[in-house]
């Protein structure tokens, strides 16, 4: 039987990177940009944070007592946001300004981003001439993982709701804010119009280009935080190449699963987080190890089923933004 008290917190922890990734991708897609570069951007976000924090830890001699708590969090955070924003900018420059194909550009960004992450993850020590055996930013990680002191004393409630680092709560806040932004604000309305029908938005005096740029860059920054959460909180500050895996692609799949609703993505991400580790909890029978590999298909198969169901349902509201994937060029009308 599943032990829910340990399962739920683990599902949440697995879900947080997906929350960031899918919320970021939803904002991006609402502007009509299908950014398949998100998996790469999450790598870039993670490694940028790692580089920043690595350099800071080195400058402090690697000792936690020399480190300023604020800087230890702020430096990787800013590096992460900066790195992912640059990738979002690159994506926009190519697809919006230069009107390149979105899928091809996105895949190139992912190739580059994953390579960038693995390269620096694998070569940072050599490049900086440091004398440490591996990238283990445990001091920084401790700052990221800090929970409320009361959490431990509150039994199951504390374990399920209060046992996470601040980035996990930030993910939920961002998801809800994004939802409110899209539904209730003027700019949110304009953004949706840009993604649905850029010609109409343009005629209404909305700057299609700036909305696309801003939504994509902010979306990328949010996605990048997912990568940062993964290394700093989930992985205890230890970078290992390719460990982040396919979470970026799952985040993109989640966007469809949630029908472009960030608030839903908060819950759906936790659900997917649970599916992601479900294999550890399901009974395996005789040949236990091998069957676990089959169980790990579950999130992908669920996504496929959702894809099929949404295509069957054919409801206007559950369709992607109408101009998703298409470049906008005023004179092409």
């Amino acid at each position, binding site marked *: 039987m599943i032990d829910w008290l340990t399962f739920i917190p683990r599902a949440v922890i697995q879900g947080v990177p997906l929350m960031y990734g899918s919320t970021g991708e939803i904002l991006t897609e609402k502007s009509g940009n299908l950014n398949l570069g998100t998996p790469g951007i999450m790598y870039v976000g993670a490694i940028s944070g790692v580089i920043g924090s690595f350099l800071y830890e080195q400058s402090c001699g690697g000792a936690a007592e020399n480190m300023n708590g604020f800087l230890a969090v702020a430096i990787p955070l800013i590096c992460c946001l900066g790195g992912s924003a640059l990738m979002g900018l690159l994506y926009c420059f190519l697809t919006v300004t230069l009107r390149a194909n979105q899928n091809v550009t996105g895949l190139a960004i992912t190739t580059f981003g994953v390579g960038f992450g693995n390269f620096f993850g694998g070569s940072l020590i050599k490049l900086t001439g440091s004398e440490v055996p591996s990238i283990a930013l445990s001091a920084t990680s401790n700052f990221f993982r800090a929970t409320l002191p009361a959490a431990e004393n509150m039994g199951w409630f504390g374990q399920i709701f209060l046992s996470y680092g601040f980035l996990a709560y930030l993910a939920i806040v961002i998801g809800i804010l994004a939802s409110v932004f899209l539904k209730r604000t003027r700019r949110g*309305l*304009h953004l949706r119009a840009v993604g*649905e*029908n850029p010609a109409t*938005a343009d*005629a209404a005096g909305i700057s299609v280009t700036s909305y696309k740029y801003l939504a994509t860059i902010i979306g990328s920054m949010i996605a990048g935080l997912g990568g940062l959460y993964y290394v700093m909180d989930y992985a205890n500050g230890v970078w290992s190449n390719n460990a982040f895996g396919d979470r970026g692609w799952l985040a993109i799949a989640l966007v469809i699963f949630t029908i472009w609703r960030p608030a839903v993505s908060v819950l759906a991400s936790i659900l997917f987080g649970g599916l992601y580790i479900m294999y550890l909890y399901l009974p395996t029978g005789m040949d236990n190890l091998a069957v676990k590999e089959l169980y790990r298909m579950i999130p992908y198969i669920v996504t496929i089923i959702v894809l099929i169901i949404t295509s069957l349902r054919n409801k*206007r509201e559950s369709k992607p933004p*109408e101009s998703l994937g298409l470049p906008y060029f005023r004179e092409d009308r």
Partner: protein
Amino acid sequence: MEERTPILEMRHVTKRFGNIIANDDVSLTLYPGEILALLGENGSGKTTLMNILSGIYYPDEGQIFVEGKEVSISSPKDSFDLKIGMIHQHFKLVDVMSVTENIVLGLPGKLDLKQAAADIRAICERYGFEVDPDEKIYNLSVSQKQTVEIVKVLFRGANILILDEPTAVLTPQEAVKLFAILRNMKEAGHAIIIITHKMHEVMDISDRVAILRKGRYITSFVTTETTAQELTDNMVGRAVSLNIERPEPVDPKDRLFIQGLTVKNEEGVYKLRDVSFTARSGEILGIAGIAGSGQRELLEAIAGLQPVEYGIINYIDDDGTPESLLKKTPVEIQAMGVSLSFVPEDRLGMGLVGNMDLSENMMLRSYREGHSIFTNRRDPAALARQVVEELEVSTPSINTAVRKLSGGNVQKVLVGREIASAPTVLLTAYAVRGLDINASYTIYNLINRQKAAGVAIVFVGEDLDVLVELCDRILVLCDGRVSGIVDGKTADKNEIGMMMTHVGGAHEG
């Protein structure tokens, strides 16, 4: 009248697109509380001129004054700020959003949809619109969408409204309603420019008429002091009569027998109900009706492109044997030895592939021929050359992508290909839409040549003048039903117009 201050004035406005002059030294004046009709043929520069006012194009020369002050309009926003609102032919609405969301789109300030909806209801009440602010756009009819566009403009406080052929998509009843609303707005002091080329509308609604011809401003009239004849003469620059030939049908035989044809669209709405008629060889059967009355479905059902609920579609060959085309694909129809050609309404989206060249487009019909797994490229190229030569298609070469050709030339390529297979049945939908006079006549002549060759032609048209001069018989559709079939020689345009809106008149074979 001269002493009033104009609310809007364009002086010596010129707009060039490269070496083509779309507007040449046009000056135009609009007074508050009047409806100005802007009259001109297609391509006379009406829409370009209005797009300059709405900030889509920027004039190369000339000045624009609003309420006496010179202004510069370089974006749609500038245009809104000057209280100019344009209702385009192609609606600019976001389908999945509500009416209210669409109306407040692009405005500054905090988003308060409830307040906005209340304001919209107030505007609707004031001018007599019927639209629910909470409804989604995709649930609205065309005329309701147009209403939303007008409300949108009023919501922004526009006092100069520009409507680009607003009645093109409306039924006559809806047009009457629209005009009533326009008069209400005029009473409220708004100035309105309406682009149209329907003469009765000009006479009905406008206070003054300004005429453009070939990008130039010709003259303007006070409506009550002019006649339709005078306006037409000025618009086309010469006295006009269409004079389309109508040779007597030679030895007409029943060719296509349709009975009880009923078609539903994907949403399950009836588009055709119990349609029956016979098309004969050597004869042009016109199909008249308001846009969307089932014309497209009728042709597509015959061509095997539209699922049919029930009914009979029989092809009758020369010795009188009927063969059913029902539930047959285009390929199966071809395999039966029935040579059926179809010139669809959407030339580049359906009839042709825009990105392929002339030769490859010729291949669309013929590529299956022969048993080889490879395509034969020589014959289509030869056909392309032949079409270019015989129909005087203006193109750099047969290897040019068809989307680079002008509208008339695209249509020549399409019609050329369709008649090349020596059809016995030719279906055409809006064959001259968007073409200039010369190109239109080329197409009429081509169709008449097919008629002389004994082809049974079904000609879906929108211009009643053309239908009554070209067709031997005219079938009038109204909301998917046959309203009646009239003889082309004796047909009266007004009677057809009535039949388009009310089912009536006797059925015929």
